[in-house]
């Protein structure tokens, strides 16, 4: 009897080649990621970290090669821009984010997610009145609210204090323990289990 094992491979990137302005960012890049593992993308500014992450998220389409996700929906993506509306309160922003992912969340769940990123008391503050770090944390609160198996985080630690960095790495580890997948770009050395590093050189 042959038992078909469910493949644990979540992401396969095959020979991704990307050019910008006649300059090759990366050529024939191949890697794969299993469930429960993380990938840190490093490299100097302009090496193409953001572009690679946008390719993996399905946002950037001008490349050759293949990206295969074992996934029905798009991954959860946190980019350069916080993805937060200045005119809406923290709570409204997260409610809208949950709406987009088709998830029904209660106000308590939202407030809980906000307190996880140390934003208690800011629930009804318009994001435009917040500091850059706080605004980014509103965006990152989605990590506590939405149950999407794949996260793609572009510089998640920018404008976040040391305590915040610890909390987010802890959250990433929890997510990996639950068979999730995380791809992130950062210069920081963070302690994340089961992590590969991808150095983009020029």
């Amino acid at each position, binding site marked *: 009897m042959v038992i078909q094992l469910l493949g644990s491979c979540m992401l396969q990137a095959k020979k991704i080649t990307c*050019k*910008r*302005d*006649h300059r090759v960012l990366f050529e024939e890049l191949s890697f794969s990621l299993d469930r429960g593992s993380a990938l840190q993308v490093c490299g100097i500014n302009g090496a193409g970290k953001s572009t690679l992450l946008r390719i993996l998220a399905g946002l950037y*389409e*001008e490349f050759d090669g293949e990206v295969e996700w074992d996934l029905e929906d798009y991954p959860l993506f946190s980019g350069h821009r916080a993805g937060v509306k200045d005119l809406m309160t923290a709570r409204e922003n997260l409610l809208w984010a949950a709406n987009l992912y088709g998830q029904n969340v209660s106000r308590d769940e939202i407030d809980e997610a906000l307190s996880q990123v140390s934003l208690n008391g800011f629930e009804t503050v318009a994001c435009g009145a917040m500091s850059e770090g706080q605004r980014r944390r509103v965006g990152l609160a989605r990590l506590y609210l939405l149950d999407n198996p794949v996260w793609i985080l572009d510089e998640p630690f920018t404008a976040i204090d040391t305590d915040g960095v610890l909390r987010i790495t802890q959250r990433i580890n929890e997510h990996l323990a639950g068979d999730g997948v995380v791809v992130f770009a950062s210069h920081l050395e963070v302690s994340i289990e089961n992590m590969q590093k991808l150095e983009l050189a020029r």
Partner: protein
Amino acid sequence: MWGWFHRLGSPKSFYEISGFLLPAMFALAGVLLVTGTVWALGFVPQDYQQGHSVRIMYIHVPAAILAQSGYMMMAAAGAVFLIWRIKLADIALQCAAPIGATLTFLALVTGAIWGKPTWGTLWVWDARLTSTLILFFLYVGVIALRSAMDGRESAGRATAMLAVVGLINLPIIKYSVDWWFTLHQPSSFSLTEKPSMPIEMWLPLLVMVLGFYLFFFSVWAVRIRTEILNREYGTQWVQSL
């Protein structure tokens, strides 16, 4: 089959094949255009209403025809690029737009010159001239978007999208302008829709139209070849040329 399709669509093989065909295309275009022009200027009889000024038709009508079918070919290239991502189609679109716009402009100018002896003014809001003017705007839009996006990798797809949207709108615009014209000027004299054109006027026109087509394709191919060299600069096959 698909492999063959993609190989033919590769910039390199286009460059090779077109290099082989171009001299013949230019020669044939030249022969047709010279024959048509001499025939039209020297041998076609005068029009009983318009006199000698009817001869400008032999530039105006081919230019107007090419302006329209040029847009269709450009938008078709756009559709091919959006669906199959064949890079040659993107290059073809980018290169067709300025040629098409120039021919549209030529059609407008010759229409105005023709209008002066016929109507007494340079411009009349005639249905055909008006829709040619709008076609010119559509070309300008494609060129403007392309140049505004210079350096962005997705520029090709954005331009292709616009060209396709324009193509879908083109018949609607044309019908509405025709309808608008009949509404406001029900019994006016139209330039080219003559009830019956005698064969000795019609035949040189056909020669000119064919000549314009061949000229269009030749210039298009030259532009595409230049753009291919520009984009593929640094690849092995371009370096070894």
